[in-house]
């Protein structure tokens, strides 16, 4: 096979992909309604993070006569130790959580994809050095490191938190993207483009990235969940100062303040943020599953 026969094929293939993309998306969505649910859940969380806090006053009202109140119409998830509505806490707390997740995901993906592409594209010495570093980063236990870091760094804003999590979390994406780049190289993609005299920027930007974009997008979604878990977990452990309203803080107060693991009173307070995390996970798992099928024609045919 020669270069000239590969490239037009690849190009028409990507054009067809684009044309049929939305039709394909719709078909995949329709086939399993659960995927639609996933999209709805994710949209719901996005809405909650953006507009949720606007629905409540700056300082949430406290009902001191109803501490740890049981779920009712006025308080669907009861109230906390100060008599604040738990649902309101979940909604207002979502912004910090989701914003961190977003910042982390962007940093993870940009760094990971950049390093992975570079290593896979250059190969040779750069590759082995970068991958050694990546391996090492993957082996250093992330959570203990975060905890140790928390003694000198307080992660006050969501952006700051996202930055740290992103800087710690790009290893997996870098490895995956590198593997993809290498396998694309093996398929003769790059050599063929070189043979046509295309520039490196063009090869990476126009040939490699588009074919990897769905893969990277999926990784980004997974990175969001990872970041949400990590920061909620950090706040839950109680090693960080409770600056903002946040699901992790709620969990901490419910378990270590309210004794949710010994008495039933604080149970709704504990379960509300847990439910939010589980729902977010479910939504992302379903959407990733759908994306997998949209971008992976091999699965579609089965």
């Amino acid at each position: 096979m020669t270069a000239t026969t590969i490239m037009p094929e690849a190009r028409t293939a990507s054009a067809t992909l684009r044309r049929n993309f939305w039709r394909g998306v719709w078909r995949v969505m329709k086939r399993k309604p659960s995927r639609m649910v996933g999209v709805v859940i994710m949209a719901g969380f996005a809405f909650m993070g953006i507009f949720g806090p606007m629905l409540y006053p700056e300082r949430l009202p406290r009902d001191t006569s109803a501490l740890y109140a049981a779920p009712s119409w006025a308080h669907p998830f009861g109230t906390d130790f100060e008599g604040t509505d738990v649902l309101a806490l979940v909604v207002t707390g979502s912004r910090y959580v989701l914003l961190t997740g977003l910042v982390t995901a962007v940093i993870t993906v940009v760094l990971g994809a950049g390093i992975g592409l570079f290593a896979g594209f250059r190969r040779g010495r750069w590759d082995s050095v970068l991958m050694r570093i990546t391996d090492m980063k993957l082996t250093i236990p992330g959570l203990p490191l975060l905890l140790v870091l928390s003694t000198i760094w307080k992660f006050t804003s969501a952006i700051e938190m996202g930055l740290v999590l992103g800087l710690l979390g790009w290893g997996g994406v870098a490895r995956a993207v590198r593997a993809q780049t290498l396998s694309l190289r093996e398929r003769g993609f790059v050599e063929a483009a070189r043979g046509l005299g295309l520039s490196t920027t063009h090869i990476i930007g126009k040939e490699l990235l588009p074919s990897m974009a769905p893969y990277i997008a999926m990784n980004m979604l997974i990175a969001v969940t990872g970041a949400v878990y990590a920061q909620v977990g950090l706040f839950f452990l109680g090693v960080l100062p409770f600056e903002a309203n946040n699901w992790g803080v709620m969990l901490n107060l419910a378990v270590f303040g309210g004794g949710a693991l010994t008495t039933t009173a604080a149970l709704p307070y504990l379960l509300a943020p847990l439910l939010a995390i589980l729902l977010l996970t479910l939504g992302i798992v379903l959407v990733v599953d759908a994306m997998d099928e949209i971008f992976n024609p091999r699965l579609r045919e089965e």
Partner: protein
Amino acid sequence: MTLIGVPGRSGVIAVARRLAGHLARGLVMILVVTTISFLIIRNIPGDPMAAKYEKLVEQGMSPEAAQQAVNVLYGFMPTGSMWEQYLDYMKGLARLDLGQSLTVPGTGVSTVLMSAAKWTLIPVLAGTLLSFLVGIILGVYAAIKRQGKLGDLLAISGSLLHGVPQYVLALLLGAIFTTLIPILPAGGTADIMFEPGFNAGYIGSLVQHATLPVVTYALASYGGWILAMKSSVVTVLGDDFILAAELRGMKRSIIFRYIARNAILPLFTILALSLGLLFGGAIFIERIFNYPGLGLMLIDSITGRDYALMGGAFLLITVAIIIANIAADLLYTVIDPRVRSGGEAA
């Protein structure tokens, strides 16, 4: 053209070379982690080491004696250049001298850590083993029945559990089994009413207290196993040698063994990763169930400003992960002849 390789001696050399590589990488890792610890502890706001030193000198101690006292306490020299302090810290580490614990006064950090390590190690290993076995068996089942409803269900349960973080699982299990249906103890390692030792009451209590942590470890990694095993079995089922064995009239039981052994192989690389993850996750599980392992020790040392202990716990968790990695890789080497003979293995 590859001719017949010579397994014997060259195999041993290949294994030894792999091991040496691992150890070298492990040492670098330890160096990185201890350096991070050092930098962090030296940069803690307020510089507790210097503060202690000043205080001792103010109390009338000679500078040398005060320096000695601080060094014993923290494993740090409070004076001198950063570089001198670093070398000193490293020298201490090389002698396995991690300083003194503040939370348990008069005890060396290494002693405190060693007594905590068993409370992490045993539940983590038990949980991993449990989930590995269950996950692999169900994974094979999910692969064989992948067209059916039950196979689907198993796969979905796997991806959901795989996605849920450990602390969420731990909290849910805790909420169910200690609050709603209080049949299991909420924390600790054993009831204080039993005399520690080899007696039925104490051991029973130990098991009872360990149940929730172990089950959480197991559930947290079970999803990963079932998914990995399923896809691995599906891959192997499509391999030619399985059809070839069938066409040679091999017994089903033998073919099943062929499938199982080939499918498990790639999981050993995941085993290492998963162990690492679990040691990290131990922090949550031990905190939630108040289980006095390394993770809880790390948190307590941070909240209690016991920095020598913090550095030590961080180091030990890292070492545990390095050892888990080496063990998993060696196991892999023993099972896969392609790696063993040092050939151009897949």
